[in-house]
């Protein structure tokens, strides 16, 4: 299993300099991928812009949206952005897409929330028809999301949770893959949050970032991986469940976090 690291593009106050240096260090480190999240109504850097900056200062790592909220953009705009990052990175790009969970993002983007699933399907069809080279992942936990993933994508991006939750999602992804008659098997990506330096700040960030989920934010904050042991257990658990690539997202935008995580994984 490969392990990638998130770029703190949705952590408030992350500067351009910090994001670039973060990506550069990740390129030096043991990480396979640098990944970004997507959130419109929040103090954050737009995911494709963040990856464009990362592309300029890295040579080796893959760059991924894990995930970007497709339907906030038009199909053509999304394809353009994806194409641009792929070009800027010499093809080191993986496009993970989902419908997201926040209605306020849709309102702000003037995008219809009701038809988000169908619109994502249309975008995927568009991407698949126009450009066959970009690796596509789809996230989501509904049956419709798994079908969409199996129909158009190369793999599944899990939304986070303990290894057991990943395992059951992975089974559903494989079942959908066979059901749609795809050869081989889907790539399986997992993700988790970590904070090694300042766990309280990290967990406070998650509480804020997920405040829109109500009390569930607590649950997500409590699952933050805040010790070397917790990270190692998590990584081992995901590897055992057949994850191909695990992305660990930072909850504290402090450059030392890259080194700390590299050390734990070494």
């Amino acid at each position, binding site marked *: 299993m490969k392990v990638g690291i998130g770029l703190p593009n949705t952590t408030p106050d992350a500067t351009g300099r910090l994001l670039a240096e973060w990506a550069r260090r990740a390129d030096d480190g043991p990480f396979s991928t640098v990944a970004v999240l997507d959130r419109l109504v929040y103090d954050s850097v737009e995911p494709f812009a963040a990856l464009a900056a990362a592309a300029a200062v890295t040579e080796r790592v893959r760059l991924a949206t894990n995930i970007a909220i497709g339907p906030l953009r038009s199909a053509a705009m999304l394809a353009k952005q994806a194409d641009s990052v792929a070009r800027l990175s010499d093809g080191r790009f993986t496009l993970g897409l989902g419908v997201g969970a926040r209605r306020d993002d849709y309102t702000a983007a003037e995008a219809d929330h009701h038809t988000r699933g169908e619109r994502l399907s249309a975008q995927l069809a568009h991407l698949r028809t126009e450009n066959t080279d970009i690796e596509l992942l789809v996230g989501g936990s*509904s*049956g419709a999301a798994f079908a969409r993933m199996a129909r158009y994508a190369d793999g599944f991006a899990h939304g986070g949770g303990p290894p057991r939750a990943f395992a059951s999602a992975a*089974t559903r992804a*494989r079942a959908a893959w*066979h059901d749609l008659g795809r*050869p081989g098997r889907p790539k399986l990506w997992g993700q988790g949050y970590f904070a090694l330096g300042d766990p309280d700040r990290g967990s406070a960030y998650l509480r804020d970032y997920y405040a829109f989920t109500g009390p569930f934010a607590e649950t997500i904050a409590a699952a933050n991986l805040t010790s070397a042991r917790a990270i190692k257990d998590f990584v081992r658990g995901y590897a055992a469940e057949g994850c191909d690539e695990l992305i660990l997202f930072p909850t504290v935008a402090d450059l030392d976090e890259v080194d700390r995580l590299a050390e734990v994984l070494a």
Partner: protein
Amino acid sequence: MKVCVLGAGPAGLYLSILLKRADPAHEIEIFERNAPGATFGWGVVFSEETLGELRDADYATFLRITDTFARWDAIDIRYRGEVLRSRGHGFSAIARKKLLAILQERCRELGVVLRFETSIEDPAELPEADLVVASDGVNSVLRRSRDFGTRSTPQGCKYIWYGTDLVLDAFRFSFAETEHGLIQTHSYPFDEHTSTVIVECPEPTWRAAGLDRMSDEESIAFCEDLFARDLEGHSLLSNKSAWLSFPRIRNRRWSDGNVVLLGDSAHTAHFSIGSGTKLAMEDAVSLANAFVRHGHHDRAAIRAALVHYELERRPMVDRFQQAAADSAGYFERVRHHTGLPPRQFAVNLLTRSGRISHANLALRDPEFVRRADLDFAGEPDRLFAPPPFLTPLQLGKALIPNRLVVTGDPRGAGLVRTAPIAVSEDGRITPETQVGVASYPVDAVHEAGALAMACLTHAGRRGATRPARFGVDVPLPPDEAWPLLSASAVSYGPLSQVPKAADEADLKRIRDHFASAAAEAATAGFDLLELDFAQGRLLASFLSPLTNPAEDRLRFPLEVLSACREAWPEERPLVVRLTVTDWAPRGATIEDGVAYARAFAEAGASMIHVEAGQTVAETRPVYRRGFLTALSDRIRAEAAVPTLVGGHLTSTDEVNTVLAAGRADLCLLDVEA
């Protein structure tokens, strides 16, 4: 910490014991509306696995509980007058009253304060506390007083919980035929004098039998009479017993601030898998441990513990609720299984919730499985039979050497399906789809010991797409595409070509193409023929109300079937691959699927290959391991036709279970080479 517990059921009492044991400084007060000895119900069952957990959590309680246990290891199934016994199941049961008495006593020893006969109608009456536990059961008032995102849905049959002074020596399921439908009992002993008898039946049967209007006495008399053979002259005892519907409770959140849901207030699991008390007590263990891990010195620590508890328990509870739903659904529809031979009926019952497989049963009771496998093989007089998946299947004149079906490498399989073969150029799915059967290596399949099945399709509006390695339903560029046909002029997916609605001339042509392809397949030496009426391809588009506005949706598919049946040798089986539910709003339902399957069987189909969904691009599939098994079970039982099923079966044990239980006759195995 100061803890206020509402409800002295197993959940609240056990949590109090475990908390107090971990830290005697806790001040714990329990409020209970009933008097110490008053309770509903009779006995509760525990499995060996649960006992292990209880042993580790508090040995003193464990000892007292197990001292008074009724233990047995058999399940008896009375069906068509015969009683079949399956052993090795390792149950223990205890009177609910006794269990509560033990837990209460242990609470007192440890210094937990118990306030009986204190009904709390308004949570504001509860004293201030650091932690408030809502262990007040299914109808929790504490849960109602806040927003936990609660959903309550009735599940399964109407049921009533009786006792009897007959002491059984096994768990017993008994099925009684009445003129209004099947009525069944679940009964088990729980002490040296008494057994529990739960009587249940689907609501329509319950009404038709008049049980909805009977007095308590009449209801008892009715049940005593119906199950006289099981009761052996003993009577049924009521304990405020009433006919109820079981509510399945789910909550989006299990805690809010310092209030936490525990046991039935958080989740219920249908009683037919007998796990409510187990789950309640395991919740208590998990929550108590969470406080050991996170401490309870401040609000944040308490919150962390509550979150930890929910994260740990939820996946487990989800799994039990899924199994419980399967089990409840099984008993609601069990009347359709009365066609199964007794031992297969028993295997079907024992494996109903997906928690016990053929291999598990064989470990528990090798003799039972040996005989079930012999019955399955149709050779009850032999000493040993092969496992179900290696048992040949006689279908018409075709003898399929084993039950495994594959697409591709024939080694080890009984039946090999071809990739879809288009009956005409314009019926291709992709440019790579083979047209016509001519070049298929049937001999190689025969040499590998398997039979060969030709799968004929017409892609309909799902045609002219790129090969599946690039995604599915991705249209070809216009200059490479060909015109598509369907039942109506509606495109399949985004960017898909709008098909032409087939006219009478098209229909005739397509029917003739199918028939001549069938004849060619016969000449080429294929042993079975499969017609693709599934997943939104041409013939499926005629069957779904989503794609065919016509009244008589069966007409054209039946014409194609008849034409093929005529062109295909009579003694060779013909399989219809059928979408039995569209999994989409306003689409065809499983009830439609049953009706279609019946119609095709009458028109000469020897078997239904069960599929679901993909009629339209946006559907609501439910993917999991064996996701088509339950649908296959219904088609096989309700349409009385043999079935072939896939649905992500990944091991021979899963296949053995499906076959032995009579949920299908052939299985497609998904193996990731």
